[in-house]
């Protein structure tokens, strides 16, 4: 599964994940040093997508652990199939020749493996995506970094299980709470910001090939402009940009203007307050002006 940096960059482009040099290098180092990669950033910048894309590039299984408040070892690591064990005892109760031994009940047959154990036991090096790690409890986080440092777990009834192949681990966080130093220390760190206009144009072209160059640029430009407004609470994500571009394509539009932005606003601004803010403070005229003058995003000349 060895991959060189130019190959990785190339693969990112091939699967339509447009990123800068620094991001590619950080991912490459994470693979080379076999260290977990902690990705932080605003919602919708492509953190989770990174895990999926890596599984795609490395042609391996993606194992996903979605974190939430109250997540514990039984949901993340393993759990004994208690009902099945009881059934086995019940079934063998009247059969004297088939006495159930304790070892029979605590065997792999009755072990329900959860994402972490699955990632450790998988033969081929999988991609383990631990999504929204900031949402889990600090206790679980402490448990997690122990697993991530040694890539082994101890099951009292079975002993220690060590990973045959160290999985590619991607952790994502929306930075809703500060993660512990212990976890950070075990990871390489990557902060993903919203892409620059030029990069977002490339993303649109890669994901929505039917979008005209001009439309792709104007869509990216307007979205970047909307993200600049600090009063807009829910900033449009990359996925929303793509949805918007697809919608505009399906409306047979090859250009964007203020009125069209107003009419399709629901696709990019998803809260009432943000939409009201757009109507009161920005408006179609401002969008027309931005699109006409190009603003600071640059790149318009490339599309002409």
């Amino acid at each position: 599964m060895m991959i060189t940096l130019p190959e990785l960059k190339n693969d990112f482009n091939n699967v339509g994940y447009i990123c800068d040099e620094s991001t590619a290098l950080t991912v490459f180092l994470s693979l080379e040093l076999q260290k977990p990669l902690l990705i932080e950033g605003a919602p919708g910048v492509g953190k989770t997508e990174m895990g999926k894309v890596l599984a795609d590039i490395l042609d391996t299984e993606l194992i996903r652990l979605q974190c939430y408040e109250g997540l514990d070892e039984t949901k993340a690591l393993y759990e004994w199939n208690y009902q099945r064990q009881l059934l086995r005892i019940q079934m063998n109760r009247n059969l004297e020749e088939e006495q159930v031994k304790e070892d029979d009940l605590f065997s792999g047959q009755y072990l329900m493996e959860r994402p972490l154990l699955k990632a450790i036991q998988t033969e081929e090096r999988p991609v383990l995506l631990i999504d929204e790690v900031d949402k889990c409890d600090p206790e679980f986080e402490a448990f997690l970094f122990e697993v991530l440092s040694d890539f082994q777990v101890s099951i009292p009834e079975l002993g220690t299980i060590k990973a045959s192949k160290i999985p590619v681990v991607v952790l994502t966080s929306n930075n809703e709470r500060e993660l512990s130093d212990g976890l950070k220390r075990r990871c390489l760190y990557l902060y993903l910001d919203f892409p620059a206009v030029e990069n977002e144009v490339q993303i649109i072209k890669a994901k929505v090939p039917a979008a005209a160059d001009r439309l792709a640029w104007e869509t990216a430009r307007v979205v970047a402009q909307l993200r600049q407004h600090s009063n807009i609470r829910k900033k449009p994500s990359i996925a929303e940009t793509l949805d918007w571009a697809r919608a505009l394509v399906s409306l047979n539009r090859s250009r964007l203007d203020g009125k069209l932005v107003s009419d399709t606003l629901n696709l990019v601004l998803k809260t009432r307050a943000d939409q009201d803010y757009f109507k009161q403070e920005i408006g179609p005229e401002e969008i027309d002006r931005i699109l006409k003058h190009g603003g600071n995003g640059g790149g318009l000349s490339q599309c002409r």
Partner: protein
Amino acid sequence: MSLKEKLPEGHLEENLITFTNLLREKGLSISTPETIDALQALQKIDLLSRDAFKSALQATLVKSRRDQEFFDRLFDYYFAPPEVQRRGAEKAASHKKQFESKMEQACSEMKFKGEALKLNDEELAQYSSMSQEEQKRLQDFMHKTETGVNVKPRFRPVLESVVKSHLRYCRSKSMYEKQNNTNRKDDQTASGPSAGNGAGSGSADAALGEMDIQAIRTTDLPEAEQLLQRLSRKLAIQILRRQRRGPRSGPLDLRRSLRDNMRYGGNIFSLKHKPKRRSRQQILLLCDVSASMKQYSTFVIHFLHGLREAVRDFSCFSFSDNLENMTPDLKSRAGLQHLLDRVIRRSETWGGGTNLGLSLHELMQKHPDLLNGKTSIIVVSDTKTISIDYAVNELNKLKDRVRRIIWLNPLPKEQWPDYRSVGSVAGLVEMWPCNTIVQLEEVLTGRL
């Protein structure tokens, strides 16, 4: 020949260790394994590429967005290209020369009756950094003193003391202005065109968040308001998530488990749990609105108002020499400036002395329904009040009727021993120093 081969053995390692030590001095927590990671990362990249070199160190040594700024600055300084280093060294030498000449000049000017004043290097440096106008003003003062009637050489220590005091004042003033200018520069950078995608706003927020609330200017209030909203929302999400029902939320419900498993002959196949108790707490905010406290109080009101969706009940009272219910005023979604204006307007006894005891007494008499075992009281006050003993007595009574009292004191902790009132109150409540937005968030996170 690669760079690694060109460098003497250990050179890269030494540089890296020095660099990590400098980062540690800046407050970054970098462990030895991380330094080893950095070194291993450098072995995997093309060392001749400056960008790759920087990215590799960044990925292994920087673990938060806040640290990024320090890293960038230090990296550019420490790993500067030779010609930049040479220019920097020349500049430093020239600065040093200028500095020495200024110090000599300062020594020659700061004299009393022909004898040099005993000033240390820091004081002389402060004098030489002052504008010509300020220097002239100080010299004029010294000259007038020197040529005054019956002025003897033995007056020198008195003059020295006055001059030293003036220089100290000038130093703290220039430091304050410098800090404010830095903050403003950061703000401008953040609100500039490049800040659009969220980049850069981190440093501006950090600067604003660590500024004394009292020193935040009116022009910065919109940014401060946004920062408060963001932090408040973050805390509200944390509180709400704690209250949300998890998959196995409550304790085991033995009765339901037994009844449910009767069909399996009494074998406990499935466990039943009691629902998690949703106990939303009540928050009662008591704000001192005396002149020195109004801005602190307004910020806390604004921050806690953002938590209203996460708490069952939020009440707000202002006090100076009596108690004023501000809860109805908070129903509208007014901005920070409006809130500040309203705090000033609503305080009918503006300018009167603060009487905490009387206000607490009034609270217990008029609003007993708000005080119960689920109520957390947050007091914003520097404890300066008339009749402190009466206030302590009333506070003692109030303490027994509520869950907890958290006291946010804008006075720096070092100054607490200087005030008897702080000592009297601190023994009864959970008192925390709180004069910045960051401190406000830190104190309230995990305590609500």
